[in-house]
């Protein structure tokens, strides 16, 4: 750095000062420093290079700061908590909480202990629930989007109608589902049992027992599929009609067009959509919490509720954090493997 300080200062001036004042000031500075013209132009070029080198970082900085503040710091705090015996005795002053190292993790993944067994069972239920919910939401979204691809009368109305669940506040919607699923007074049983007579004998329960899993799945799909519809509809806008015309000339039927034109064109959309749906559904807390209250039936004991109960109801935040971190690692692993596989396939394709 052999440049005099004054010259560096002048670089900032034209940017900060009002435009009309800039040339004068720059000249004045240049004269004061006494730099020959040739040197000046070289310096300007270097300055521009430096500016363009830092500009991207500058633009990204606010996002990075917020990302660190909102996501990374709480995550690291969570990791720290998971290494402590953080019970009600210590929550007021975390420094007094005994450092237990990986004890919480050992209890979490010790599948012979009751804590580990319960977590594993909850994990299994969540995997099944997520797979079914994501697949069904995607399937419904794709079907609806494809059928509404060509303009017809009332298409806008139908699209709006289909998107309603996505626009409703989750609490109000799920509370309503809770009413619908009630055994004696709910609409579901009224239709199934009283009007259609589909059920022999006793009225079924939906909010407790084995059916509670299916009740939860129905609400989840109902809430999620409009988002799939939205994304796939947007993705279909980019499929050129020429490809469909060419396919039609080649004599391709509906299924052939779907598998050879629509689905391959949607691949980038689907790749992101499925991942996002998976992560959202796996972590979904509101739906089960509002539908069942704090205590979910064992058949529908999703991992988010399970962890909530392990930390808030039992006041053991260290254990809850350890479970959260294990969950986080699992989701990171799934995401990484998924992206690796789908990206490789795209390159090969």
């Amino acid at each position: 750095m052999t440049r005099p300080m004054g010259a560096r200062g002048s670089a900032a001036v034209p940017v900060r000062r009002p435009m009309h004042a800039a040339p004068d000031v720059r000249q004045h500075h240049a004269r004061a420093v006494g730099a020959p013209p040739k040197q000046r132009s070289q310096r300007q070029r270097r300055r521009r290079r430096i500016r363009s080198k830092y500009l991207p970082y500058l633009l990204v900085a606010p996002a990075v700061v917020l990302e660190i503040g909102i996501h990374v710091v709480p995550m690291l705090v969570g990791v720290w908590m998971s290494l402590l015996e953080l019970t009600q005795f210590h929550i007021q002053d975390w420094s007094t909480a005994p450092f237990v190292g990986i004890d919480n993790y050992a209890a979490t993944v010790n599948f012979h202990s009751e804590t580990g067994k319960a977590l594993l069972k909850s994990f299994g239920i969540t995997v099944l629930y997520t797979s079914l919910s994501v697949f069904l939401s995607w399937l419904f979204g794709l079907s609806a989007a494809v059928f509404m691809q060509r303009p017809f009368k009332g298409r806008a109305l139908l699209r709006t109608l289909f998107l309603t669940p996505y626009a409703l506040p989750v609490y109000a919607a799920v509370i309503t589902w809770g009413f619908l699923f009630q055994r004696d007074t709910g609409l579901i049983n009224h239709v199934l049992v009283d009007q259609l007579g589909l059920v022999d004998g006793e009225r079924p329960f939906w909010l407790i027992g084995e059916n509670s899993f299916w009740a939860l799945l129905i609400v989840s799909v109902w809430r999620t599929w409009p988002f799939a519809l939205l994304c796939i509809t947007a993705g279909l806008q980019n499929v050129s009609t020429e490809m469909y015309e060419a396919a039609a000339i080649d004599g391709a039927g509906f299924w052939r067009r779907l598998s050879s034109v629509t689905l391959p064109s949607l691949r980038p959309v689907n790749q992101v959509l499925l991942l996002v749906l998976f992560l959202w559904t796996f972590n979904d807390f509101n739906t089960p919490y509002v539908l069942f209250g704090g205590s979910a039936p064992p058949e529908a004991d999703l991992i988010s509720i399970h962890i909530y109960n392990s930390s808030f109801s039992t006041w053991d935040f260290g254990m809850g954090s350890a479970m959260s971190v294990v969950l986080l690692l699992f989701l990171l692993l799934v995401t990484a493997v998924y992206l690796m596989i789908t990206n490789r396939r795209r390159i090969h394709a």
Partner: protein
Amino acid sequence: MAAALLTGSLAACGEPVADAKTLTYWASNQGSSLEFDKQTLAPVLERFEQQTGIHVKVEVVPWSDLLNRLLAAATSGRGPDVVNIGNTWSASLQATNALISFDPQAFDRIGGKDRFVPAALAAAGAPGKAPAAVPLYSLSYALYYNKQMFADAGISKPPATWEELVEVGKKLTNGKQWGLAIEGANPSENAHHAFTFSQQYGGEWFDVSGKPTFDTDQNVAAIKRYIDLMAVDKIVNPSNAEYAKNESLSDFANRKAAMLLWQAAGSAFQAQGMSPEEYGIAQVPFPANPPAGGKKVNSMVAGINIAVFRHSRNLEGAMEFVKFMTSDAEQVALNKVYGSLPSVKAALADPAFAAPEQKVLAEVLNSTASPLPQVTTESQFETLVGAVMKEQFANAANGKPITAAAIRAKLKAVEQRMKG
């Protein structure tokens, strides 16, 4: 996620108020709605401001949020000065050391320890320690019964034993109505009954050192007795297995069930259109032949305590407010509206608490009520054992047999989870 939730709720807390002329007060939801409570408290707080010049900012916090909000306030050292707490949380919150202890000096500042009803004071912290709170509203369980239904079935007096309750329950159960309504999917309600039954069967949920003793014969028998009201005696509508939002209270008020075990339900019945003449109140039954070691307990000491956060910037004012809220006059005024009982002896003498309902509740509270175990893991007991019972009710409702062995296995499993 726990961290995210904690940080999330931290952000929701207000800044502590530094001046001596304001207080922040979190009230629990005692009436039919948050708005109702706000209106009930407004004139009370105005009187306090007139007397002391201290303005109280009140927020009525729903029960579903209160404990989490308290935990967040304890963690962050920010939030309210004075709070209401469920009295069963006293020992757990005491352990956080976030609340001031009511040692003799603190009691002197609010008018002395002797003013309070001893049973209520026993549910304000771990035994042998200075209480972490003082009682504000007191409640106990009672048996509510529909007089007309009893008369129609030719029953002259309410059951005094569980055997009698089953017998009259069967008479009262027909195509239109059921003998008893139960809040089967509500873990807390379940746990409260688990406590009472266990006491009557001579059991304990925790030993003297505070360690859980869940899977004892007495506790298994206690839970089985309660579940069997639906599973074996069939005097409870199986639908009650999914009740968690006070539907059993509605069933009773809407004449779908003849009996209900509840705490101070009168004002809620009124809100649902059932007048006080329509129902009678009796004590919760006992077993006809008490098992060995069985205790004469037929209710928990239920109630709400008032506590002061150590982090308060206006401790003087906070103590002044506790003194005011537990004064005879305000105790009468508030408990009258909420249908609960005063926690100070002098206020209990007021004619407002001579109604049949309050008389029964007071009788129970003074003689046969016992506090839930004042141990730091009490809320775990409610969550875990309450959930086991919810699952058993679900099995009973679906026609699966309820066995002592299955209950024991479940209790054993949750006991191990408590130990980590």
